[in-house]
């Protein structure tokens, strides 16, 4: 089938970008979206043109490295799917697709469809962990974890850090990403001692990174390839209020 691509081309962070039109006359329906871009790039190199830079690695939807906007939707039209797992059979002959990099102030464009998501790493470095030095852990069964908590913690921990939530949010808020990490750790007994510090530290870092605030629009949940639920943001807000209370002289358990 024939597919027309309009791709954002930008040589580097400082350069001006523009949309460029490419026509692919023979796209196999079994191809993945990224395999279509591979074919385009092979073709561009053959013609002596600079191939389109895009991030990708595992191509099985788990590493979180790939992603771009397809017709204004992060990771394209299929719900719960990363760009690498999107196959061309979901498109029609003659479709025109507009590919743009993630759009967020905290994710500056590096080149073409590649952006810098290191702000996510700094959010984790600020507090998205449990402080346990290697070797000091008690037996794995010493602290029991109710199955429901473990399951819900796992739901949140499934986040792959791709950044689609930020890209889709009109405020470029990182709330779904942060909420997922806070829920993952906050639902486990091991995560309790640092729960207040964690939310305060991550929130402060998010402000420094110029992520926006959450206004409960829900676009993030709609495009999340791992189906992270909006309720993690509600949990985060509750944790934040509680941590503020503690910060003003309250005590844990108050």
């Amino acid at each position, binding site marked *: 089938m024939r597919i027309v691509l309009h791709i954002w081309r930008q*040589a580097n962070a400082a350069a001006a970008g523009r949309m460029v039109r490419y026509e692919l006359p023979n796209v196999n329906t079994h191809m993945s979206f990224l395999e279509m871009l591979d074919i385009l790039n092979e073709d561009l190199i053959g013609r002596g043109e600079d191939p389109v830079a895009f991030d990708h690695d*595992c191509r099985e939807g788990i590493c*979180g490295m790939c992603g771009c906007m397809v017709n204004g939707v992060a990771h394209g039209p299929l719900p719960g799917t990363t760009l690498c797992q999107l196959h061309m059979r979901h498109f029609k002959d003659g479709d025109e697709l507009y590919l743009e990099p993630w759009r967020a102030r905290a994710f500056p464009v590096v080149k073409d469809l590649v952006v810098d998501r290191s702000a996510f790493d700094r959010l984790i470095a*600020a507090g998205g962990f449990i402080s346990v030095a*290697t070797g000091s*852990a*008690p037996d794995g069964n010493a602290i029991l974890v109710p199955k429901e908590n473990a*399951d819900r913690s796992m739901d949140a921990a*499934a986040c792959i850090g791709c950044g689609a939530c930020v890209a889709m949010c009109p405020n470029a808020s990182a709330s779904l990403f942060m909420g997922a990490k806070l829920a993952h750790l906050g639902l486990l007994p*091991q995560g309790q001692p640092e729960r207040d510090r964690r939310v305060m530290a991550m929130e402060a870092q998010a402000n420094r990174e110029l992520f926006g605030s959450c206004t409960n629009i829900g676009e993030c949940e709609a495009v999340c390839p791992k189906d992270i639920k909006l309720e993690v943001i509600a949990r985060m807000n509750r944790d934040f209020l509680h941590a503020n209370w503690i910060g003003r002289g309250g005590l844990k358990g108050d």
Partner: protein
Amino acid sequence: MPLDSKSPGGPIETRWDRHRFSLKLVNPANKRKHTIIVVGTGLAGGSAAATLAELGYQVKCFCFQDSPRRAHSIAAQGGINAAKNYHNDGDSVYRLFYDTVKGGDFRSRESNVYRLAQISLNIIDQCVAQGVPFAREYSGYLDNRSFGGAQVSRTFYARGQTGQQLLLGAYQALERQIGAGAVEMYPRTEMLDLIVVDGRARGIVTRNLLTGKVESHLADAVVLGTGGYGNVYYLSTNAKGSNATAIWRAHKRGALFANPCFTQIHPTCIPVSGDYQSKLTLMSESLRNDGRVWVPKKKGDARKPGEIPKEDRDYYLERRYPSFGNLVPRDVASRNAKMVCDEGRGVGETGLAVYLDFHDAIQRLGKPVIVERYGNLFDMYERITGEDPYQAPMRIFPAIHYTMGGLWVDYNLMSNLPGLYVIGEANFSDHGANRLGASALMQGLADGYFVLPNTINDYIASTKVEKMDAGHPAVKEAEQQVNCVTRRLLEAKGTRTVDSYHRELGKLMWEYCGMSRTATGLKHALEEIPAMREQFWRDVKVLGTGEELNQSLEKAGRVADFFELAELMCLDALERNESCGGHFREEYQTPDGEAARNDDRFSYVAAWEFRGVGNPPGLQQEPLAFEYVHPAQRSYK
């Protein structure tokens, strides 16, 4: 001179304890005066970098991805083994040790494997404390399952994303140290050479993938946790970026490369669908618990699977291996799939696939049970192939998945180059000729959290390294070497893309150094590869410059290394005149077609020394002694 593994002797149960006590320590106040470089941020590299920083060392950590959280350990699905014996089902450290040595077809080092089995206990504890959401029972206790044909339930798991969750644990521990200023992190930075001074590893040369800037980093020791080399085959279950450049370039600087021909082929992957295919996707082998593998009895039977009656189907695994049936180990299942396809009985458009059929299981257990057990895998299959596996059988075919070979290391995980440590899949040490399921995660974390941070102290404490700076001639020479390779790749200005060469090499390797090998085929490959490599350097087409984000240039450097490594793999496979584990030489099989080992001649680790591109490498041997688990033929009949 045989290689010295530095394995401690004496009773195997106390070897690691006694060895640890004999190692020198570094005074806590002095640790911050020493810098250690860690390359790679997967389970091995990430856990090592975090732990070394906790100990007080200055750590510099590197990865080529945009974040340390993306390393390919993240894709592991099944689980991680530990001999906790929480189920009282007869498991023990000794049994895990025994299973791993036997599963490795008696080509691994007993001391290392025993230590791995011991440490498996600590890993689970550590990961639970970090907040890894392992599956739990309603009582709140950790859940286990049996995996990969093991007769005990020792596999811990977090849904189908165990690798992801363990990696996030290590990544968060690493980010904590980065936030504390104890680790200097360099993402999107690729190691392109090792700096060796007076025979010691003293640093690395890197290229910043965004700016192209070539830089040197100096240290007291260098740790490589850069993963395996399965992408030499182009199509594999590895991530697109997984590469052998760090270990290969260390090899070219003197590190020995051990057992390069030991590669693992996973039997249950989604088959290739066309020339555009960029990677292969693994389906967890747990599917073989309920799926039945079959092909038509007749060659070229073009009927749809549902139209082929039972009497015209060949359930070949159940027929040949009545006691293990569809649950035979990975190497046996893979080889049999190839055999029936070679006979012309393969299915699907390409004829390179076999059926994995759940019809009987759905009849027996009902669809809801199958949905609960395998729902996510069935969805994944449908997403990729567009076919509904509840209606028609899945089509599967083996694919390259893991490489047991890697840089040679001693019991301390140090290569023959003092100061160069190699951990995780990048080394050769624990899996012999075949790796068991749920053991890769265990080894990566054992090396990174518990082994290396103990053994490296001894080297730091007992070695006085000279002060040096970036002006040292060895540094300048390594930088020049890196710049020279980049220039050659950019200046070739040929006609064919990097990928087209990579595909060609991959096809050749799959054909002649894949699931089964022959002396004739390997000799043919050894003639083809140098010619192909020569053409690559003359004719490769890499656009752009070296001073920007240039993904073709990155790939070109990695493929150049694959061309050299491929030759060594074929040579090693040719020299090893026996069949063992993942290495099957057609000339060496039992009368009923099983792998025939030759313990008298080949009970050794083949460690190869680099002697220049195109020159025959030197072979050094580390003899393997089996004091506890006595070599026997593996039988799954």
